[in-house]
C-alpha cells in the first residue's frame, strides 16, 4: 500500500514537472554551453536517466527558478538604488536621515520565510521518497565496495563479482548496498542521480531504476588519497536481453587454460587477485575472472587493449599514481604471456 502510493507520487511528480520546467531550464542553460555540447552529454546532472535522477532534478528545477527569480529581483534593486541615488556633483546636502521602517523590515523577514515554505515542501517529500524502500518489490541487489582506488561490485543473487564496470538492466530497480574496505569513498554517477558515501565499517543504501540504456561516466566523489581523481567507473545500463547475456557469460566462465593460470600463479598475481575456478583466490585486488570482457582497465582509466594492459603490468604506478598494485619487475615475455592469458578471460 505504502509502496504503491510512493510509486505513484514519484511517477506523478516526475511526469507533471518534467515537461515545462525542464524544457525551460534546458533552454536557459544550454545556450550558455554554446554549440560545443555535441559529442559528450553536457550538463550530466540535468540529463538524468533514472527515476532517482528525475526526482532530484525536479527539486533542483524548483530551487533553480526560485533562486534565479530572487537573484534577478535583488540585484536589480541593488543596481537601481546605486544609479538612482548616486551623488551628483556639487551635491553637499545631507540626505534624509532615515533610521528604519519596522513594517517594511517585518515584511522582508516574512517574505523569505514564505518562499522557503515552497522550497521545503518538495525537499522534504523527496528526502523521504529517495531514502524510502525501493519502488520495485524485487530489486536487483548489488553490493558496492570501495577500495583505494577501484570499485568492487558483487551481485549476490547472480553469483557475480566484478570490478569498475557496473552492469544493470534497464527498467529494473537496482538496490545498492555501499561500504568500503579502507577509507571513505562516495558513489556518484551524475546521470543516475545523487551520491552516497561508502563508509568503512557501516553500510549505506541507494536505489535507482535506470530508464535509458547506455554507458555512463561515474567516479568517486570523496577525497580518498593519491589517485582519488582516477577512481572512475562505467555504468552500463543494458536492455534486458543484453543484461541476461552479460550475466550468463559472467557465470559460465570456461575453465582458463592451465598454462596461463600457472604463469599467473608464479608471477605472484594470485596473492591479490581471484580467478574463479583456479587456485588464484586473492582478495585484495579486483576479481579478474572475466577481465578480458571489460572495456577498460585500472578503474576505467585506460581502454582494455593488449598494449594498455601490458603498460599497466609493466608499471602500475605510472598509469595510476600511488596504485597499490606493486611493480613486479616482470620481463617482457612474462608480460606478453600474462596479457594473452588475461585478455582471454571472458
Amino acid at each position, binding site marked *: 500500500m505504502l509502496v504503491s502510493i510512493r510509486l505513484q507520487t514519484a511517477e506523478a511528480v516526475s511526469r507533471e514537472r518534467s515537461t515545462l520546467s525542464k524544457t525551460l531550464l534546458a533552454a536557459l542553460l544550454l545556450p550558455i554551453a554554446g554549440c560545443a555540447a555535441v559529442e559528450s552529454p553536457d*550538463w550530466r546532472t540535468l540529463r538524468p536517466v533514472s527515476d532517482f535522477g528525475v526526482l532530484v532534478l525536479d527539486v533542483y528545477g524548483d*530551487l533553480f527558478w526560485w533562486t534565479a527569480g530572487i537573484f534577478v529581483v535583488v540585484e536589480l534593486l541593488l543596481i537601481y538604488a546605486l544609479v538612482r541615488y548616486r551623488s551628483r556633483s556639487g551635491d553637499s546636502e545631507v540626505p534624509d536621515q532615515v533610521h528604519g521602517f519596522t513594517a517594511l523590515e517585518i515584511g522582508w523577514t516574512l517574505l523569505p520565510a514564505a518562499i*522557503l515554505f515552497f*522550497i521545503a515542501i518538495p525537499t522534504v517529500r523527496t528526502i523521504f521518497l529517495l531514502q524510502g524502500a525501493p519502488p520495485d518489490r524485487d530489486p536487483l541487489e548489488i553490493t558496492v565496495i570501495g577500495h583505494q582506488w577501484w570499485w568492487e561490485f558483487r551481485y549476490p543473487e547472480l553469483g557475480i563479482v566484478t570490478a569498475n564496470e557496473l552492469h544493470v538492466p534497464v527498467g529494473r530497480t537496482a538496490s545498492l548496498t555501499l561500504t568500503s574496505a579502507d577509507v571513505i569513498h562516495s558513489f556518484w554517477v551524475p546521470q543516475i542521480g545523487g551520491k552516497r558515501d561508502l563508509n568503512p565499517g557501516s553500510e549505506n543504501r541507494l536505489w535507482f531504476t535506470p530508464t535509458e540504456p547506455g554507458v555512463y561516466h561515474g567516479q568517486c566523489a570523496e577525497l580518498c588519497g*593519491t589517485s582519488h581523481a582516477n577512481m572512475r567507473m562505467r555504468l552500463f545500463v543494458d536492455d534486458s536481453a543484453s543484461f541476461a547475456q552479460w550475466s550468463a557469460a559472467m557465470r559460465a566462465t570456461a575453465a582458463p587454460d592451465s598454462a596461463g593460470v600457472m604463469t599467473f600463479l608464479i608471477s605472484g598475481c594470485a596473492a591479490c587477485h581471484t580467478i574463479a575456478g583456479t587456485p588464484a583466490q586473492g582478495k585484495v585486488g579486483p576479481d579478474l575472472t572475466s577481465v578480458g570482457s571489460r572495456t577498460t582497465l585500472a578503474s576505467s582509466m585506460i581502454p582494455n587493449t593488449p598494449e594498455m594492459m601490458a603498460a599497466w603490468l609493466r608499471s602500475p604506478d605510472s598509469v595510476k*599514481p600511488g596504485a597499490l598494485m606493486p611493480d613486479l619487475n616482470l620481463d617482457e615475455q612474462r608480460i606478453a604471456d600474462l596479457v594473452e592469458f588475461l585478455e582471454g578471460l571472458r
Partner: protein
Amino acid sequence: MSAHATAAHPPLYAGGLRSWLTTVDHKRIGVLYGVSALFYFVVGGVEALIIRLQLASPTADVVGADTFNQLFTMHGTTMVFLVLMPLSAALFNYMIPLMIGARDVAFPRLNAFSFWTFFFGSVLLNLSFFVGDPPDAGWFGYANLTSKQYNPGMGIDFWLLSVQIMGIASIASAVNFTVTILNMRAPGMSLMRVPLFVWMALVVQVLMLLAFPPITVAFIFLMFDRFFGTHFYIPSAGGTPILWQHLFWIFGHPEVYILILPSFGVVSEVLPTFARKPLFGAPFMIFSGILIGFLGFGVWSHHMFTTGLGAVADTAFSLATMLIAIPTGVKIFNWIATLWGGHIRFRTPLYFAVGMVGLFIIGGLSGIMHASPPVDIQQHDSYFVVAHLHYVFFGGTVFGLFAGIYYWWPKVTGRMIGEGLGKLHFWLMVVGMNLTFFPMHFLGLDGMPRRIYTYATDLGWERWNMIATVGAFLIAVSVLVFFVNAARSLASKTQAPADPWDAATLEWTVSSPPPEYNFAVVPTVNSARPFWLHKYGPTRDISTRTKAQGTPAQPDNPPTRIDLPSPSSWPILAALGLALLGGGALVGLWMVLFGAAVLVFCVYRWAFQPLERTGHPTFGPAPSGGSS
C-alpha cells in the same frame, strides 16, 4: 581639522624590530595581523594558481597527484586560518578599541600572545613544505584517510598540531575581545549604540569561543590515534570515522560565520558612510547577526547529506539550514535600503562593499540549493560547491575585507590610497572572480568532482576549466594592482585627514594614524553615531543640516596624564614556548618538555611583571595627585 593632530604626537609606528616584537599596542598588533594575513594571501593565492594551471587542460602534468592533493589542502587551510581569520583579526584589533572609545583592549599582553601564537602556528604549518611533506587530506581532513595506516607521513601531524596551536590563539583573542567589547565601551555607549562592525565582531568572538572546543576535541582524538595508537576514528578497531565529520562540522559551520560576519560588519559601516545615511534598521541588523550565529550551531550536518544519516536527520538539518536564509535575507534588504534615498559617493570602499553584497547574494542563493538534500546530493563534493564557497568566501569575505582595508587605510597608515588604482583593482577582481568561479557551477552540474588533479579528455570539462584558469590569473593581476597602490600610498607624503569620509563613528574623531593612547579624552557617547551628531547636531530639519564648523571632537593633547602598558617580551616568548611544545611532538619528547618549560617560565614571569613599569609610555601633564 586634521593637520593639527599629527605634529603633536610621536609617530605611531616608530621604533625598531624590538618595538614590534614586544608591542602590546592593539594598533601595532592589528598591523602585524594584517601584514601576516596579506603575506599568506599571496602564498595561498600562488597555491591556487598552481592548482588552476594543473586543471586548465585535461591530463595536464604541471604537478603530480600527491603534490596536487597537498596544494589544495594547504590552499584551504591557509585561506581559512592564515588569511581570512587573521585579516578579520587585524581589523578587529585596530578598530574595535577605537570604535568603542577605549584606549586598548582589555588584556593587551594576552593580545600580543594571541598574535604570536597564531604566527608561530602558521610558521609550523608551512614548515611542512620545507621538510617536503605537507598535509594532503584536505583542509577538512576526513578520518580515516588521516590515520597512520593511510597517511603515514608527517604532513597530517604538521596540520593537526599547527591548527591546534592557532586554535589557542583564537580562543585567547575571543576571550580578550568579548571582555573588551562588553566592559570597555566609552561612557554612554549602550549595547544598542555599539557600531555594527563591533557587534558582528562580538558575535564572531562568541562563535570562536564555542566552536573551537569541538575541533580541539576532534584534533586531540586524531592526535591520540596517530601518536599513541588509540582508535577513535579507526573502523577496523571499532572506532567511527563519521565521528570526525560531526566534530569537524560542529566547528566547521560556525567557522563559516566566523569568516563572513566580519565582512557583514564592514559593509554595515561602509554603506552608511558613503550613502551619508544611518544604517537602515540597525536593531534588525544586530539581531539578525546574532540569529545567524545562533542558528549556525544547529546546521552542521548539512555538510553530511551524503554520509547516510537517514531521512529524519536530513530533514531536520535541511529545515534548520533554510531558516538561516531569513536573517541573511534581512541583512541584504537592509543594506539595499541603506543605499535607498542616500547621496551615494562612489569611492573605492563603497565599490568593494557593493561588490560584496552583489556577489554574496550568488553564494547565498546557491547555499539555499545545498540546504535541500535531494539537490545537495548531486552538488556535494562537485565543482558546484567549489563555486558556492568561493562566492561566499571570496565574493563575500574577501570583498568585504577589502572594503574595510580601503575604508580604514587612511586611519591606519595616515596616507590616502589611490582611487584610480583602487577602482582598477575592484574591476579586475570582479571580472576575474566571476570568470574563475561562475563556470565552476557549470562544471559541477556537468559532474566534475572536487579535489581531482586530472580528468579525462572525453568528458567535456576542458573549456570551462580553461576559462576559470584565465580568471584566476586576472585575480592575481588585481591583487598586484592592490600592492602597487598600497606601496604608492605608503611612499606618498600627503597626510590623510582624521575624517576623510565624513563618517559617523568614533575612530574618525582621532588623528590618522591615531595617537598611541587613542583618545586624549575618553569620549562620552549619546548616540549610535556620535561623531555625526557632533558634526551635524541633533536637528531633524533637513534644511539646517550642513556640517557644523564646531570644535574638534578631540583636543590635541591629553588634559590629564595617560598611562599605557609597557612593552613586554614574555607574550612572544610564551607563544614561542607553546609552538616548541606543539612542534616538538614531531621531533622528540625532549623538545616537547623544553617547550613546556619555556611556556611555564614565560607565563610565570609575565604574571609577575607589572603592566606599567618604570619608563612605561605616559602622555599629558604629570599627575597632580588626583586619580586619572
